């Protein structure tokens, strides 16, 4: 995703030189709005954030890494919330990859009008925000009058509290998240599947390969880029999960479902906590997400060159 394909290399040298730097002023002018906006609202705040993460909140004096140290030594919650997010991201990503891949296979086989309708319908949750999804799922998971508690009562069992048990609290976050992401992931997988040339399979048929062998040796290797794309999306997105945990469990019980962003959001609200520690934590999250992305890009890039 990150490497640049220099189109000009495809054109012969002479023409390349003729076109090079043509219309530079137009280029700068057309780039200007985006550049200015990005600099003011993304790069500038980032620089300020980095500076503040090394400052004391009250005196504004530079204090080196002490805000970062505070996060790990004093504030075990940040570290814990980070592990929570890692665990949740892993669980959700694995489940989503498996079920959306499976269902994409089904969709590919369903090459008719009904299949088209199904594609549209499963995409509906993509248009729903985390806030709305939580409102909807509250009607299902609520202890005092939700659907699941109602079923329990009808079966003469005690209602289930999804906020008072670690595993159940995880479920009440994971289910809405999967519900929101399933449609998009499936359709990306599907796009990948239909892009695999049919002759690969025909060749395999000639060789007498069975369904599973075709899946393992043709489908999955050819889906690599799509899967990588989805994994990057999911890691970046789910490491920053905030709205659903906030609405469903509030991070409880005993902070077991507290995610780093929710933690930072809460501490931003807590007047007794220094903001600069909060910012330091947010920078650590950024570094983690960047590291994952760079690692993955490097991996595809080298693989690509091997392929060529």
């Amino acid at each position: 995703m990150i490497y640049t394909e220099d189109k000009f290399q495809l054109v012969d040298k002479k023409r390349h030189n003729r076109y090079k730097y043509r219309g530079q002023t137009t280029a700068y002018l057309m780039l200007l709005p985006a550049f200015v906006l990005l600099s003011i609202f993304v790069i500038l705040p980032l620089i300020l954030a980095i500076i503040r993460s090394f400052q004391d909140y009250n005196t504004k004096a530079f204090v080196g890494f002490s805000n970062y140290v505070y996060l790990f030594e004093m504030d075990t919650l940040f570290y814990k919330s980070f592990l929570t997010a890692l665990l949740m991201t892993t669980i959700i990503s694995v489940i989503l990859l498996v079920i959306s891949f499976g269902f994409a296979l089904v969709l590919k086989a369903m090459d008719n009008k009904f299949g088209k309708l199904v594609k549209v319908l499963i995409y509906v949750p993509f248009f729903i925000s985390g806030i709305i999804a939580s409102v909807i799922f509250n009607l299902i998971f609520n202890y005092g009058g939700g659907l699941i508690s109602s079923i329990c009562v009808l079966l003469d069992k005690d209602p289930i509290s999804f906020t008072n048990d670690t595993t159940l609290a995880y479920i009440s976050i994971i289910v809405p998240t999967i519900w929101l992401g399933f449609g998009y992931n499936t359709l990306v997988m599907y796009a990948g599947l239909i892009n695999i040339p049919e002759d690969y399979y025909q060749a395999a048929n000639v060789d007498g390969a069975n369904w599973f062998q075709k899946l393992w040796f043709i489908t999955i290797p050819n889906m690599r880029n799509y899967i990588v794309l989805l994994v990057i999306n999911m890691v970046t997105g789910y490491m920053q999960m905030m709205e659903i945990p906030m609405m469903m469990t509030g991070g409880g019980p005993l902070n077991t479902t507290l995610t780093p962003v929710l933690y930072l959001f809460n501490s931003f609200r807590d007047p007794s906590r220094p903001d600069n520690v909060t910012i330091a934590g947010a920078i650590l999250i950024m570094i983690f997400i960047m590291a994952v992305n760079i690692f993955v890009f490097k991996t595809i890039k080298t693989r690509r060159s091997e392929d060529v």
Partner: protein
Amino acid sequence: MKTRSLSKFIVPALFVVALTAGCKSKSKDPVEEGATIITMYLRNFEDWSNEYMNKRVKEFNSNMEDGIQLSVKFFEDEAYTDAFKVAKENGSAPDIFMCSYGNIYHDVVETGDGVPLNDLIKQEYIDDISDNIKPMVTYNDKVYGYPQLSEPSSIFFYRKSMLNTAGVASAPSTWAELLEACSKIKPTLKRGQYCVGIPIGSALSWSTYGLQYNLTGGLALNDDWTQSRVGTEEGFKDIAGLWYDLYGNGYVPNGAISPKGSYNDIIEGMMMGKVAMTFAGSWSIAEIMHTYSDLASDVGVSVIPTKDGNTSKVTASNGGWTYAISSQSDKEHQQKAAKVIEWLFAESPERTAGFFEAAYYSKAAVTNSVKAYISEHVEDNLKEWTNVINDVASKAIPEATYPWSISVAVGTIFETCGLNADLNKGESYKTTTINNAIKTADDSINAIIHSSSWEGKPF
């Protein structure tokens, strides 16, 4: 094709509807020409309370000669914090903001967000503040928040009919009686109903200050804030043990029974029949009278059950709200803001008493003049309840002023013991669970003390 042209019509229509509707202006209060605008942030409480404040604000603004236009904004709990923080960051903090007794030191004095009121509010009104409230709003001889009300945070409520059905003759006054009552009530309940409601979640530890003081004669820190008391005082273990037993026997609901899910509105769960008894704040009385008045005769009110049943001891903390004036405002705004506070809460006992009337006297007045006015002019027809409240309030302690994280650490003990309660695992498991929880809390409180910038109690 048909659906297409239809939808082509629908979207613009939706936008037009939405946009025009958005432009509809609302009726505004009369505006005083050239008046100074004083902004005030209020917290969203029960409907009746918000209505009362709105009414008073309208009344204030209808005076066109005072040169002050009061602009009030209500916020939900969290929205309040966000709004205040952002306004502060923008340098446009509200002229008047709210602060609870327990947070005055940290949120007003230490942060410097508020200014001392002594030079702004007339001395006679400051002298009027009741003796038990004054120390809660005074730091370094200066008053930082003008008090509006005080309310004991833990009283015991029960449904007479549900207790009768179970053959429980009177409200429990000791823990033993409480557990016994629960064991009798439990068989009479349907699925989804529970015996007693207690505060759930570590953040609600403020509602157990009364119990903590009752058993240990103090709260989580020693007098000079140099040491945690959690590990050394047996009382904390006792409360944890009660929580363990209540959860272990399935006497308490596993999650929130009131829609909002907080201790503040736990009474709704009881009024909906989801619990037979509950711990709740005195403010619940107003909620009962405003929303469930047809059931009021079925509600009983008593002092919370304590370990020894001795009702002469402390059983609650006194919570409540005060109004502070922003340090970001200029002198003129500060003076006018002080005028507003005087008008609302100090100037006329009759006016101020109106609030307590609307609250069905579930809250206690905090100035001598208002107290006198109420006892003189008002005939209280909820005597049975208000007697309990006044009795509890008179002994109640102020809320803890140490940082919130220490309160949370204490609350975590109770939450952990409740969550891990399992009576099948026997007594030794119970003891280890409680001891572990106590140790964790003790360690983290001591860690907070060591990392803090204070050396001993800062005031």
